[in-house]
């Protein structure tokens, strides 16, 4: 978390600990702080404050959006369109709805991870009730042509949800331009606290709540508000908006420095999705003749935390569904590494990785029965 975020949250624990739904003064104080945070989050995506619903995180936002629409629109139809590279929060929710009798179309993506808007147009049917396509991918960083997709959804008069967990605060987001009806956000992805997120719900959207109870969040999401978390999220949103024009280009430069450095020092490595518009902070690299989990552990022992799409490290023992969807074989996914940079990443951090990784790759390749030094 950014120190400013911690500082903003502290008074909520010590002084302003009222229940935001209470009408007594300290409840109202908490409510005022939450309203402030709501305004910050709304400004980050050009929404109105009344359109921001605070939830427990990106996963809940996705669930509320998808299940909420599926439920409220079931009289109209049961067809949902999504992509093959969604985050598990969307993917598993859609799979669950399939089991409940909904019909889901899984759109393919290009080798760089892009959905073809033409495929979407062709997939829409009279009984289509929801299109849910992520803004930017969490593994490879590909940014979808959301404006075009939003226009297609509007023309077809179908609700459009986008998982914006990765894109919020990393690239400019304007929910009006994108024509989304629902947009998921997560606080900890922008250096706010974990356990809090938000769903943008366009005014007039008919959404059945997944959490019922005391009617909090304008009846969109019941449950006593996580005031400290929300206040922290608000501060993180404010900082993210301020940094969009300065921090993010710097992060993109660092990402490019990392990729160029690694390519110059290690043979047989490939950058995924490099021909698509990409998030500034995500770099997904495939290393031939080395396995991802071994690379992750080796880097971890050197103080670098990264992740991999290798089947070896996933609980399911399946290679990443995203890498498979962009046409990579399980063998190729086996050697994948994902670097996530942030506003806190420095040039020294990047150079350290560029110095450290080649030796690790070299060592693992020497162990490989297939690798022959060129």
């Amino acid at each position: 978390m950014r120190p400013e975020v911690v500082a903003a949250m502290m008074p909520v624990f010590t002084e302003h600990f009222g229940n935001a739904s209470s009408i007594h003064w300290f409840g109202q104080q908490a409510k005022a702080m939450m309203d402030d945070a709501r305004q910050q989050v709304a400004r980050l995506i050009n929404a109105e404050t009344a359109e921001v619903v605070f939830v427990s995180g990106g996963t809940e936002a996705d669930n509320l959006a998808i299940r909420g629409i599926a439920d409220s629109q079931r009289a109209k139809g049961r067809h949902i369109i999504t992509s093959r590279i969604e985050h598990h929060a969307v993917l598993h929710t859609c799979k669950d709805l399939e089991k409940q009798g909904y019909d889901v179309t899984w759109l393919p993506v290009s080798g760089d991870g892009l959905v073809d808007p033409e495929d979407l147009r062709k997939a829409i049917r009279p009984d289509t009730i929801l299109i849910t396509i992520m803004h930017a991918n969490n593994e490879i960083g590909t940014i979808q042509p959301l404006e075009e997709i939003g226009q297609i959804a509007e023309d077809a008069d179908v609700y459009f949800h986008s998982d914006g967990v990765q894109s919020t605060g990393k690239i400019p987001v304007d929910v009006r331009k994108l024509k989304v009806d629902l947009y998921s956000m997560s606080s900890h992805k922008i250096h706010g606290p974990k356990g809090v997120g938000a769903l943008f719900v366009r005014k007039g959207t008919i959404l059945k709540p997944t959490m019922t109870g005391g009617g909090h969040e304008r009846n969109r999401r019941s449950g006593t508000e996580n005031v400290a978390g929300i206040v922290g999220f608000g501060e993180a949103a404010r900082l993210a908006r301020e940094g969009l024009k300065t921090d993010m280009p710097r992060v993109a430069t660092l990402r490019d420095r990392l990729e160029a450095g690694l390519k110059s020092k290690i043979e047989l490595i490939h950058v995924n999705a490099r021909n698509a518009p990409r998030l500034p902070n995500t770099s997904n690299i495939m290393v031939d003749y080395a396995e991802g989990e071994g690379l992750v552990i080796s880097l971890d022992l050197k103080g670098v935390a990264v992740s991999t799409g290798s089947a070896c490290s996933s609980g399911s023992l399946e290679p990443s569904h995203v890498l498979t969807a962009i046409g990579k074989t399980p063998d190729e996914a086996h050697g994948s590494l994902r670097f996530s940079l942030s506003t806190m990443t420095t040039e020294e951090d990047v150079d350290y990785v560029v110095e450290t990784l080649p030796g690790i790759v070299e060592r693992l390749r020497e162990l490989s029965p297939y690798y022959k030094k060129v």
Partner: protein
Amino acid sequence: MAYSEKLLDYFQNPRCVGEIPDAHAIAEVSNPVCGDVMKLWVKVDDGRIQDAKFKAQGCSAAIATSSYATEMLIGMKVAEARRITRDQIAEALGGLPASKVHCSVLASDAIKEVLKGF
């Protein structure tokens, strides 16, 4: 990470890495679960394994278990080596996290495969 010090040591400093040019038997096995591969070379004289070397492309647990198992083989009687189980290898390295238990099968499979002809 839930790996033991010993496992990390065998991953970082694997023993018995390499090839044996005049090996009596060579086996190459791959893990059907995650795609890791191990190649094992052995020299056998008088029913006893005189030398063993391995190469592997896989995760840290696969490399460590491959290395440990190869080291175990040296000096062992063939009949004895055939009885090595995946659990034995995993336990010797301080156990494996639940999601990594399948990794130890690579080494035990390779041993069974390479000793087939003896």
